[in-house]
C-alpha cells in the first residue's frame, strides 16, 4: 500500500479523540480545564467536604433521633442560630481514658517503629549489597507480602502465636511451657512489625542501593573497622531513608484498628479502636468526630517531618 500515491490518497482515518475534542470545544471547555477539574472536584466533594463535616459534627452533642447529633444551625423566628459545643474537646483533655489512649498509641507506634527499623535495616542493606541477579528476586519477596491481604496476614500471625499455635508446639518439643502471646501488647508489637516491615525496607533499600562503595573502601583503607565505617559513613548517609521508612511505619501504626482488635487484649489501648468503639458501640457520633480531629492533629506532625525529610533528599 502506498499512501504517497497522489492518485489514491489514503482515506483519512477516523479517530475517536477528534470527536472528543470537537465535543469539548462545542461546550466551551478547554481540555486543560477539564483535566484539572475532574479530579479536583472529586477530591473536594469526597475528601475536603467530609473533613469539614467531621469538624462540624465534633462541635455538636449526641442526641436521640436521626441524625443522632444536635443541629449546628437552627432557624428560629427568622433568625439563623449557630450552636457550637466544645464539650467533646474538653472531655478529650479531662477524661483520662482519651489522654491515655493517645499516649499509648504513640508509645506502641514508636516502639514498633524502632523494632521494625532494627529488623528492616539489615535486610535492606543485605538486599542492596547482594549480587544483581539476586536483588530483584529479593525485592519481589519483600513486596509480595505487601500485596497480600493485610487482614489475612494479621490472621496468619494470630494462628502462629496462639496458645496451641506453631510457636508453642515447636517450643513444646523442647519441653517449654506454652507462652501466652495472644491478647497482649507484645502481640500488637509483633503484628505492627510484621505487617509494616515492607514499608520500612523499601525506602531504606532505595537509599542504601545508591550508597557509593568507594566511600566504604576509603574508610576501610584509612583503617576504620567495619563497625566504625558503618557508624560514621553508612548510617549518616542513610538518614533520609531511615526517616522516610520510620514515618511510613509510625504514621499508619498510630491509627491502627485491625491489629489491636485481632491481636491485642482488652487492656491494649489504641486511639483507632477508641474511635471505632465510640462510634459503633456507644453510637456517640459527635465524640467520635472529636476523637478523629484530635487524632488528625497527632498524625499531621510526623507527616510534616516526613515532608521535610523528602525535600532534603530532593535537594541533594
Amino acid at each position, binding site marked *: 500500500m502506498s499512501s504517497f500515491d497522489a492518485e489514491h490518497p489514503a482515506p483519512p482515518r477516523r*479517530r475517536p*479523540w*477528534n470527536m472528543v*475534542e470537537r465535543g469539548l470545544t462545542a461546550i466551551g471547555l478547554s481540555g*486543560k480545564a477539564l*483535566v*484539572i477539574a475532574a*479530579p*479536583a472536584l*472529586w*477530591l473536594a466533594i*469526597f*475528601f*475536603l*467536604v*467530609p*473533613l469539614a*463535616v467531621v469538624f462540624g459534627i465534633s462541635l455538636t452533642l449526641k442526641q436521640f433521633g436521626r*441524625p443522632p447529633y444536635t443541629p449546628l444551625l437552627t432557624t428560629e423566628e427568622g433568625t439563623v442560630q449557630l450552636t457550637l459545643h466544645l464539650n467533646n474537646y474538653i472531655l478529650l483533655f479531662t477524661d483520662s481514658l482519651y489522654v491515655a489512649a493517645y499516649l499509648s498509641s504513640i508509645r506502641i507506634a514508636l516502639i514498633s517503629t524502632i523494632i521494625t527499623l532494627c529488623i528492616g535495616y*539489615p535486610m535492606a*542493606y543485605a*538486599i542492596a*549489597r547482594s549480587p544483581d541477579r539476586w536483588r530483584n528476586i*529479593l525485592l519481589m519477596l519483600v*513486596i*509480595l*507480602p505487601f*500485596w*497480600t*491481604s*493485610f*487482614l*489475612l*496476614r494479621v*490472621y*496468619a*500471625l*494470630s*494462628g*502462629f502465636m*496462639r496458645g*496451641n499455635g*506453631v510457636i508453642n508446639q515447636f517450643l513444646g518439643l523442647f519441653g517449654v511451657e506454652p507462652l501466652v502471646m495472644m491478647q497482649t501488647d507484645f502481640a500488637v508489637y509483633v503484628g505492627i512489625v*510484621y505487617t509494616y*516491615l515492607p514499608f520500612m525496607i523499601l525506602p531504606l533499600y532505595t537509599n542504601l542501593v545508591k550508597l557509593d*562503595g568507594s566511600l*566504604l573502601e576509603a574508610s576501610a583503607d584509612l583503617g576504620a573497622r567495619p563497625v566504625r565505617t558503618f557508624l560514621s559513613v553508612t548510617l549518616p548517609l542513610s538518614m533520609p531513608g531511615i526517616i522516610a521508612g520510620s514515618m511510613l511505619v509510625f*504514621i*499508619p501504626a498510630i*491509627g491502627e*484498628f485491625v491489629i489491636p482488635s*485481632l491481636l491485642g487484649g482488652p487492656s491494649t489501648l489504641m486511639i*483507632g479502636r477508641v474511635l*471505632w468503639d465510640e462510634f459503633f458501640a456507644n453510637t456517640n457520633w459527635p465524640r467520635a468526630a472529636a476523637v*478523629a480531629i484530635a*487524632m*488528625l492533629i497527632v*498524625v499531621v506532625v510526623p*507527616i510534616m517531618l*516526613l515532608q521535610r525529610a523528602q525535600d532534603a533528599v530532593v535537594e541533594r
Partner: protein
Amino acid sequence: MRRGWFLPIAAALGFAFLYAPIVSLVIFSFNESNLVTVWSGFSTKWYGQLLQDQQLLDAAWRSLQIAFFSASIALVLGTLCAVALVRFRRFRGRTVLAGTVAAPLVMPDVITGLALLLLFVAMEATLGWPSGRGMVTIIIAHTTFCMAYVTVVVQSRLADFDGSLEEAAQDLGATPVRVFFDITLPIIAPALVSGWLLGFTLSLDDLVIASFVSGPGSSTLPMVIFSKVRLGVSPDVNALATIIIGFVALGVFAATIVQLRSRPKKARV
C-alpha cells in the same frame, strides 16, 4: 570489600519472619482436623466447604465488583490528576490539589471511613442521595483512596520520560488530545496497569473504611472474614486465605511480566 556473616543471616531471619506465618497458614488449610493447629492428615474438605458458604460467596462477588469499579474510576481520575500535576506546571490551586490527592495515603482509615459516612448521612438528609448505604457508597469511598495510589504511580512514570516527544508531536500538528492518546498513553501504559492492579488489590483488602460506609446486607469479603476471625479461628478461613494469596501471587507475577516486557520499549524511547 569483605563480606561479613551478619547481613546474610539477618536477611534470612527477616525473610523467615515474613513468610513463616503465611506458609503455615497455607499448610494448615489442607489439614483434615477441625482443630486449626493440629495436623491429622491431608484433606481439601475446607475448600469444598467454602463453595457451600453462600454468605461468603456473595460477599466475595460483591467485593470483586466494588474493586473493579473503584479501580477503574480511580484509574481515570488519578491519571487526569497526574497529568495535571506533571504536565501543567502552573495553575491556580496546584499545591492544594497535590496535597489533597496525596492525603488519603497517610490518613488513618478510621478517620477516612468516619468522615465519608458522616458526609453521606448529611447528604442524605439534605439532598436525599444516597438513600441508604451499600455498594455505591463503598465504591465512592474506595475510589477516593485508590485514586491517590494511581496518581503517585502514574506521576512517577510521567516525570520519567521527557516531554520532548509530546512537543514533537505537537509541532507536527497533533492536537493536545491526540498527543495524549497517541504518544503519552502508550508510554505510561505499564504504570496504568500497575496503578489499576494496586487499586484493585487495596479495595479488595479494605476492612475499616468499608465497615463505616456499608449498609446492612452489603458486607464485603474482609468484613465477613473479620467477623469469622473474631469468633475464633476456623479452618475454612485458612482455605479462603490460601486461595486469595494464590491469586495475589499470580497477579504480582503477571504485573512483573508486564513491566519486564515494557522495558525494551522504554530503552528505545
